[in-house]
């Protein structure tokens, strides 16, 4: 009996199996995507709910997932507080300068490592990436010591100054961005720079007029990465800056809004949400330019 069933089912299953398999694959992917979306969106949702509550309502024993008396007071207070705006400003200026510094170093470095074959270039490329794998929690004490020594020797104040972070963050961003850019530059067909060389372009012109425009998606990916790393960095600013006017957003929120064992939850959540906004906005805008396959048409493929 059972063999009969299998014989009957065999041909029909073969006919529709492709689309049926695909349909099931799609269902499973939606299932897991929804699961992950819930998992990752619940905390921000909870933050939004909390940020819209007054301190009294937060500590009240009501349903924590519902706002009974919505208020924007947390937002108003933070956005009119000079201190918070100062953190914001510090974070912004540091991140922007770090992105610029990172790109000025990473792009030429990646170009050299991807295209100019010189002694040890392959080893150097791997080395660049390996430095990225050393965690900052291992580096902050020696770095602090280094800065202290330099400060003593030169008399230039480095510790407890926001601008010192502009020199420190690139140790995190440059290796990774260089690595990304090496990959993108290496994917550009060799004939493209040979054509440029024959057309009379110097190395610099080849980089500026061919490589950078062609590798723009990679450049944007690297920029987003550098910005996000700088914006979200917590350990280094915590260690290297202490005065309130030198703090960046993540450190500022946690140090000024937590007083002893008093947590100002409403403002902490509001501050964190406002702090998360710039990277979100940047992603939203740059994603449009983040188009793979910009090199299509350069060569045969």
């Amino acid at each position, binding site marked *: 009996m059972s063999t009969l069933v299998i014989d009957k089912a065999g041909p029909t299953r073969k006919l529709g199996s492709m689309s049926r398999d695909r349909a099931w694959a799609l269902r499973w992917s939606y299932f897991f995507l929804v699961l992950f979306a819930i998992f990752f969106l619940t905390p921000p949702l909870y933050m939004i709910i909390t940020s819209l509550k007054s301190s009294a309502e937060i500590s009240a024993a009501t349903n924590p997932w519902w706002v009974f008396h919505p208020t924007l007071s947390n937002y108003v207070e933070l956005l009119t507080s000079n201190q918070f705006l100062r953190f914001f400003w510090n974070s912004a200026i540091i991140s922007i300068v770090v992105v610029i510094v990172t790109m000025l170093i990473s792009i030429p470095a990646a170009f050299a490592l991807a295209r100019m074959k010189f002694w040890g270039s392959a080893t150097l490329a791997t080395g660049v990436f390996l430095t990225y794998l050393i965690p900052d929690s291992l580096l902050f004490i020696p770095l602090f010591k280094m800065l202290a020594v330099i400060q003593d020797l030169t008399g230039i104040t480095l510790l407890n100054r926001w601008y010192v972070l502009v020199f420190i963050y690139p140790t995190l961003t440059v290796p990774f961005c260089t690595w990304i850019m090496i990959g993108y530059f290496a994917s550009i067909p060799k004939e493209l720079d040979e054509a440029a*060389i024959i057309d009379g372009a110097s190395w610099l012109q080849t980089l500026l007029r061919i490589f950078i425009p062609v590798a723009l998606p990679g450049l944007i990916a690297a920029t987003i990465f550098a910005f996000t790393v700088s914006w979200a960095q917590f350990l280094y600013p915590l260690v290297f800056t202490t005065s309130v006017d030198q703090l960046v957003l993540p450190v500022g929120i946690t140090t000024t809004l937590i007083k002893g064992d008093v947590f100002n939850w409403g403002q902490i959540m509001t501050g964190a949400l406002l702090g998360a906004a710039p990277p979100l906005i940047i992603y939203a805008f740059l994603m449009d330019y983040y188009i793979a396959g910009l090199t299509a*048409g350069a060569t045969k493929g």
Partner: protein
Amino acid sequence: MLMADVALRKVVKRYDDVEAVRGIDLDIADHEFIVLVGPSGCGKSTTLRMIAGLEDISDGDIMIGGDVVNDVPPKDRDIAMVFQNYALYPHMTVAENMSFGLRLKHYPKAEIKARVTEAARLLDITDLIDRKPKQLSGGQRQRVAMGRAIVRNPKVFLFDEPLSNLDAKLRVQMRIEIKKVHQKVRTTTVYVTHDQVEAMTLADRVVVMNKGRIEQIGTPNELYHKPATRFVAGFIGSPAMNFIPCRLEESGGKLNVRLTDRISFPLPPARAARYGALPRNDGLLLGIRPEHLTESNAHLEPGVETFDTVLDVTEPMGMETLVYFSLDGTPVCGRVNPNAGAKDGAPMRLAMDLNNMHLLNEETGVVL
């Protein structure tokens, strides 16, 4: 008018221990269309890239217009190159692609526009001038790549297998286009291909390369009818020339060539005079092209000899039928009239035109 002849003197390219190009001498005259042809790895592309300046030369001299350019960077050699995969700049329009070199050299805008317009007209891509490469077909991209070379008005055009990425039909069409363009612009051209048909159809002179050396330089007809080596004889022409082991014999005061125990032909007088001094032993190959192995007919020319064989396979091509058979185990191909009645496995009387035979030294591969 600038002289744009190219000369290579004992040019060598070494990669570590491997010699890719082993001492090449080549003179390319002004306006000449030279094709370097050979199997992959024969050093033809390396030679082209050395002329372009994309590869350093390990030894010897390269001269363009009489000046040694060994250490001159590519941009100062006044050359333009067309690559196999076109290498168009993907973010630039057709016009921008073509004018890139001129813009780098700060030519006046009006002249750039005039040159681009002229080249676009010549290549019939005027309508595509504002498109991006990804909006173009393979053939159109190839035209743009040629346009980029033409607008520069260089001393020398270098083509590196430019048609290899196109489908067969388009390749034939673009081949004719390239020939037309060369007839108009008359720029000295060095063209690399592995396709002997391309080489024969395009070239003023063909340079056949093998294992880093030049086997023979000559016009397409010279290479076809008077190959210098077995390699050239076998490489040029399709289907390839047959090589049949043979020996020379004297019988009745006449010189014969013996192919098998059964088959022996008297040589025509001109051939007999030429081969008379050769030793009468083995180690010779008879080279005969398939078109000189045809069906036998009633009126045989002098020097055409007939023999009987049994066909293994026949391939009707329409205008002709290729017949395959073997002589003492050596596979041989002939070309017969489609109406000659050739059938698989059937016996057939064939005629060999010994006026067009070649005799080769089997060991050295030299055509005697």
